[in-house]
């Protein structure tokens, strides 16, 4: 089994390296495409084998030391196979294959060189993501974490001639890198405390009183990667990349890596109660806030991006409430139906050559397969039974309620936010459906037609999975991960369902019938707030202003304070050096003064010490 798992690492890596090294192969485009696609399929088969072997079996870890220092192993590489990693491996493999298939048709107009580059990075991403999923320790996870970030940077910037794409790529990279500091500091802390990077229960216990601090640092990185408020702002901008990339990285897999980190490091997070409360609050607020913003967007990909933030917020909230399986289960179901929605959006964008909802409309006759599969994805995301999203969302709400009733009353806050967000989710998703598929066709939509099999095949496959990932596997799957969950009809679930149906009704009234709802105008200011880019502006100012500001102030300090001090001191003692200054054009003398300044500090220090 472990050799099959190793194949999922080395296969895609081999393809990526081959394509990097063999420039002609890459530039030919189609050879790169074929290689990458074949590997993606082989990867699915391998992941199925791994999942079937890991099912119900004890965890298998194969690692080999990579770096050892002071006689003890510091870093190992290898694979850790248990039902948790095997499930994620499968999800990544399926979505990656669908996305690569979809990309063939989607990017058919690109120059060959671009296609080659795209599939090289896709293979590199597959390797990095698999390495992250199978990591036997947090250090390997961190290494892979950085690599998927790099792949995200490369793929968002795929259309690098577009300035907005290039800027979005940079923004995503910096934002997540800033958050990754947390992971790095957490890792160092954990290593100092326990001497290893393990995510086992023993390691968590060994952390003792530090466990909450370490978990908090890890969670900062999670907030960056999984786009939690207020570090979420890179995700909507990342939509500048090709739509299949958004489906794979920014909906199904890479953004979920943050949640996966919590799942993997669950023994640590389980003990970190304070941190988990913070997580639940952040998650609940993100679920609500991002749903608010999604309501007022007009770009279909932006709506889906904010929706992803919102759904990731649900997962984080569930984890914060202490129910790991609920959060992880939502990750799996969400991966399928959100990838489906993104690919469906890609199909629409491919047909009408625009992201704007106003350029769509009336498309269901022209694109029936897209319409039906997108509809299924929407129902799943809105939490309508019998699709997967209903069950996973229900588990999360139950988990929050259970936590609020039994150990932490503050959990009622994220619970309420999540329940309200459930209604909003249904509203904004059905708004998309009604505006894109129904109503009057716009000028752009006149000549729209359905894509070929490469576009429709993945849609159908993912639509099926959006159903089968639900009730058919719910209990057995969660049972494999830990505590098996069962679905019960509860009042809370019915309330969420009712809100979702209400949201659909509202969307129908407003966007299909063109009617109004009395009193809705009063909510307009809320829309303005959501539409404003206050959070974006804050970070931009902090980054650009802060960085430039600090640079300027350091420069100012260099020039005026240090200079002034030097001049002050220089009057008496440094007459000789003043002569040197005259010999030189001027600034060179300052440099010598700087040396003296350092010396003076040294002398002053010695005097203080004496």
């Amino acid at each position: 089994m472990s050799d099959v798992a190793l194949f999922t690492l080395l296969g895609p890596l081999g393809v990526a390296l081959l394509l990097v090294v063999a420039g002609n192969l890459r530039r030919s485009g189609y050879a790169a495409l074929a290689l990458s696609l074949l590997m993606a399929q082989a990867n699915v088969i391998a992941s199925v084998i791994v999942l079937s072997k890991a099912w119900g079996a004890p965890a298998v870890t194969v690692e080999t030391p990579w770096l050892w220092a002071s006689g003890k192993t510091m870093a190992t590489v290898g694979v850790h196979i248990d039902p948790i990693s095997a499930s994620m491996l499968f999800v990544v493999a399926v979505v990656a294959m669908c996305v690569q298939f979809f990309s063939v048709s989607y990017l058919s107009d690109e120059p060959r060189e671009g296609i080659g580059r795209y599939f090289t990075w896709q293979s590199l991403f597959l390797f990095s993501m698999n390495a992250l999923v199978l990591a036997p320790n947090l250090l390997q996870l961190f290494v892979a974490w950085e690599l998927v970030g790099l792949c995200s940077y490369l793929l968002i910037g795929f259309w690098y001639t577009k300035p907005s794409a290039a800027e979005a790529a940079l923004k995503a990279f910096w934002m997540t890198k800033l958050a990754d500091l947390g992971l790095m500091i957490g890792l160092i802390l954990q290593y100092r405390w326990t001497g290893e990077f393990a995510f086992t229960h023993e390691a968590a216990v060994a952390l003792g009183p530090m466990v909450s601090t370490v978990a908090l640092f890890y969670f900062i990185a999670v907030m960056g990667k999984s786009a939690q408020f207020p570090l979420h702002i890179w995700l909507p901008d990342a939509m500048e990349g090709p739509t299949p990339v958004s489906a794979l990285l920014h909906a199904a897999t890479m953004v979920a890596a943050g949640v996966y980190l919590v799942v993997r490091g669950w023994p640590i997070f389980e003990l970190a109660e304070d941190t988990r409360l913070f997580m639940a609050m952040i998650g609940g607020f993100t679920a609500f806030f991002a749903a608010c913003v999604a309501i007022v967007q007009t770009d279909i990909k932006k709506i889906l991006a904010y929706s992803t933030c919102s759904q990731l917020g649900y997962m984080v909230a569930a984890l914060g409430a202490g129910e790991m399986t609920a959060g992880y289960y939502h990750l799996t179901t969400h991966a399928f139906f959100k990838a489906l929605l993104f690919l469906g959006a890609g199909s629409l964008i491919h047909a009408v050559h625009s992201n704007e909802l106003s350029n769509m409309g009336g498309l269901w006759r022209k694109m029936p397969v897209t319409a039906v599969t997108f509809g299924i994805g929407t129902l799943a995301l809105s939490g309508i039974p019998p699709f997967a999203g209903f069950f996973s969302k229900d588990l999360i709400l139950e988990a929050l309620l259970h936590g609020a009733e039994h150990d932490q009353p503050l959990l009622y806050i994220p619970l309420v936010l999540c329940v309200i967000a459930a209604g909003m989710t249904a509203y904004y998703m059905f708004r998309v459906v009604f505006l894109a598929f129904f109503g009057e066709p716009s000028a752009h939509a006149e000549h729209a037609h359905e894509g070929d099999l490469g576009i429709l095949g993945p849609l159908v496959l993912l639509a099926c999975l959006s159903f089968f990932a639900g009730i058919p596997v719910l209990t057995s799957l969660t049972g494999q991960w830990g505590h098996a969950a069962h679905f019960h009809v509860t009042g809370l679930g019915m309330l969420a369902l009712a809100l979702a149906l209400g949201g659909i009704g509202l969307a129908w009234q407003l966007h299909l019938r063109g009617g109004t709802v009395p009193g809705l105008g009063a909510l307009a200011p809320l829309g303005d707030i959501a539409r404003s880019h206050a959070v974006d502006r804050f970070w931009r100012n902090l980054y650009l202003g802060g960085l430039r500001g600090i640079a300027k102030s350091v420069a100012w300090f260099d020039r005026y304070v240090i200079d002034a001090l030097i001049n002050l001191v220089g009057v008496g003692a440094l007459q000789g050096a003043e002569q040197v200054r005259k010999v030189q054009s001027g600034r060179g003398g300052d440099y010598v003064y700087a040396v003296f300044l350092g010396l003076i500090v040294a002398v002053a220090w010695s005097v203080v010490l004496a």
Partner: protein
Amino acid sequence: MWASLSPLAADLVLVIGALSLLIVDLVLPHGEKKVLGYGTAGVFIAGLLATFLLDLSGEALGGAYVGDGMALLVKRIVYAGGFIAVLGSLDYGERHWPLRQGEYYQLMLYSVLGMGLLGGVEDLILLAVAFELMGVPLYVMAAFARKDKLAVEGALKLYLTGAVSSAATLYGFSLIFGAAQSTRLQDIAVAASSAPSPILWLGASAALAGMGFKLGVVPFHMWVPDTYRGTSPPFVAFLAVGPKVAGIAAVARLFLHGETALLDGVAPFALLLVWSTIIVGNWMAVPQTSARRLLAYSGVGHMGLVLLGVVAGTHTALAAVMFYGAGYLVTTAGAFLVVSALTDEQGSDELDRFAGLAQKSPFLAFAMLVFLLSLGGIPFVVGFWAKLYLFLGAWGAGFAWSVVLGAMASVVGLFYYLRVARTMYMDEPDAQGISVDMGTQFAIVLCLVFVVGMGVVPQPFVAIAEEAASALLRP
């Protein structure tokens, strides 16, 4: 007598090689001086081979020099740095100073000789001599393009600050001698723990300040950007790496000698230097528009981290410093060689000259990207392990806040490194193709191999670094 010189066999290879080349230079006709460059490269290779094939252990010069693991590692690093720098200068020297190539390589060999000695000094006097042997040729080499005003100005700044720093170092050494009554580093370390005195701390502080100049530690860094910017481009690939590694080894030998009492005495001052260096280096790099100035400030920032490792004063941290030094050498030398190739072709190293480099020269752009990623500390290149190892070491020694500062600075670092990467890959090129001479190309490939190799298989290098650290501190 010869037996006692055996630890210096590799150094003797350099001396004999340099003297032979001096004679060859006399008989070589004009127009064929490029041979001297190949000869110098050969001498460095011979020196490197000597470090691997000969037994260089033991004491020499009456105990003033010892051939331990630290000495060996520093020799290998600086010889390799010399080799890379020669390769980068071959073509440039032939075009810009065809008749003076012999002098250039002579100076380079002597400077490297000094660096090689610094790894194993056991005596203040040899330390001072080796430091100057390393430094004085650099002043001359910096001014080699004597008609170029910027180069001469840069060289003069290097020289002026260098002279003052040497004075400070020697002043410090004399105070240390006065307090410890010995020039042996071993005795000084003992004296620092058994009979500490303010005079000793004063001397140690002054010595640290003086030696900090060579490392480019703030506030002794001000020459760095100007000199890097002004002097001939391939020379920067020499100046920016070897002297730093040798300098940090010398600082480590002086302050961490079995005991850390001498270091403890100056630790707050040293930590002040570390902080100011990390902050000023990284933040001043942000607004730079010249590639060499940018790399100069970023190099200053890296030296702050390296010095942090020394200040941490544990075996792990020192091993990390040596590993960082080796990784820094190949990464920075490679980056400066790319800049050198570009500057040479286009007459400027402004960042906008990097626009569209990926289309003009995919090789240079890819190499630069790898070097930038390494400087930024991304996995699978050496910079990642170097940073992680150093942070672990420093945190373990109780310098948590400094590590946090360093980690934050490395994020800032990515800000400006990626700006260069973006310009290379995402902007439209303005001019056509770039040709890179064979020597520089080979040197860049060599750097690439090590940057990636040490990133993927760090273990052998870490083992060597640990052995070097064991020469001074117990694990």
